[in-house]
């Protein structure tokens, strides 16, 4: 009888571990949708912004910077950030937050997709900075400020590639970074430190840093970011990343290299694209992680 004791104990621990793990996973997944409520009301009076709730970019829509559903005045930053040829048969539109880790994990996947499909894919980026990410609005404005000097995508890439660093207010890009400086930044981890990091990025991208500093807090740049966010909220987006392919809202489970490849092939072949049912599904997870929710 004694021989069965260790087996019984091990079996009990195994069951507890599996059961506990699954229960914890389920609890975490159930907690996440609750974060989406209440969804902040759609900003109705965003200056110089017109929101078209039902209009993610589609190939039939002329999405050149001059003519888009979301438009701001001509003197302001470019209305739409597009990478790829204007006549590409497939348009992928991402609502992203530079501080959101799943967005950061999606970034290399999208880069791979752009590389794979070349002229057949056009990527559109829209800002959806979540309030719970303290540096996300500043990061979005940094990308816009760089965009005013014609380097939106370079800053976009820089922010995503280094997001784990600047989130903590640490700049490991600069050659002058020392361990003591890094430790100090870790301890401070304040917005002002992040600003310094963004200024450094602007310098690396050979931007006019003084102009970048001024633009970072300008009303035009703030309005540009807010216009994207207002548009996203109007579309019912409550988490990031949210991706539309030819106007079809992709489920979060499809935001993988394989899933996006499959959706791309379907779009190119004119076949139906697997679409998110209803509003963004609350419990959905994907290998890039559960999308971040608005708060």
């Amino acid at each position, binding site marked *: 009888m*004694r021989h069965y*004791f*260790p087996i019984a*104990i*091990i079996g009990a*621990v*195994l069951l507890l*571990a599996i059961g*506990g*793990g699954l229960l*914890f*996973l389920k609890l*975490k*997944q159930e907690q*996440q949708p609750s974060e989406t409520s209440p969804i902040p009301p759609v900003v109705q009076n965003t200056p110089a912004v017109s929101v078209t709730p039902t209009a993610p970019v589609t190939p039939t829509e002329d999405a050149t910077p001059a003519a888009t559903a979301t438009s701001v005045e001509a003197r302001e930053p470019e209305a739409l950030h597009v990478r790829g040829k204007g006549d590409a048969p497939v348009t992928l539109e991402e609502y992203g937050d530079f501080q959101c*880790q*799943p967005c*950061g*994990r999606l970034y290399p996947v999208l880069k791979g997709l752009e590389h794979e499909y070349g002229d057949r894919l056009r990527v559109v980026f829209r800002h959806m900075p979540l309030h719970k990410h303290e540096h996300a609005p500043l990061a979005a404005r940094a990308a816009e400020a760089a965009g005013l000097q014609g380097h939106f995508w370079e800053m976009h890439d820089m922010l995503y590639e280094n997001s*784990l*660093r600047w*989130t*903590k207010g640490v700049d*490991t890009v600069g050659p002058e970074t020392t*361990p003591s400086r*890094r430790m100090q930044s*870790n301890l401070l*981890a304040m917005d002002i430190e992040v600003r310094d990091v963004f200024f450094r990025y602007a310098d690396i991208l050979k931007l006019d840093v003084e102009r970048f500093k001024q633009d970072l807090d300008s009303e035009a740049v703030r309005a540009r970011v807010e216009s994207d966010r207002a548009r996203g909220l109007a579309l019912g987006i409550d988490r990031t990343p949210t991706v539309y392919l030819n106007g079809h809202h992709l489920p979060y489970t499809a935001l993988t290299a394989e899933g996006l490849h499959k959706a791309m092939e379907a779009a190119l072949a004119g076949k139906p694209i697997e679409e998110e049912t209803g509003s963004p599904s609350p419990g959905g*997870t994907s*290998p*890039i*992680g*559960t*999308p*971040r929710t608005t708060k």
Partner: protein
Amino acid sequence: MTTESTRIVSHPKLYVLAAFIAVAGLADSIYLMVKHLTGEDVTCVASSGCSEVLSSAYSTVRGIPLGAFGAFGYFVAFSLATFSAFGYAGAVIFLRLQVCCMLAVTLWLLYVQAFILNAFCDFCLLSAGLTISLSVIVTIEYFMERKHRVPANQEVAREL
């Protein structure tokens, strides 16, 4: 003269302690695995690099989170420690091998955190501490077992 021992498991209480430590490691690994699967941020208390470490390229192996490997490793260690505590001599050998492997992986991960990522994560450090504790226990038991080892021929003579 033979070196065979008639008392392989000399201190079962040490293995009970090892089993409890392995369960703690199992819980830690499962927590990290679930956090990875849900994509949630892990909040550090003592250190500041949880996000950096747990989102790095080193946090997965072929898409499988390290927490899953950790959970498996700790579960195996727990099973072997339990069998050892109940006097299964063969399990002791496998436990020593298992703990050696876990210690090697732990040292590599500590190196990655310290010199490649320049960031530490509380839960990873906890796991490292638990693995090191297991190593210490197994090492102590090994030397105690050597000390108490009774050569087989002496045991036979005593019985006669």
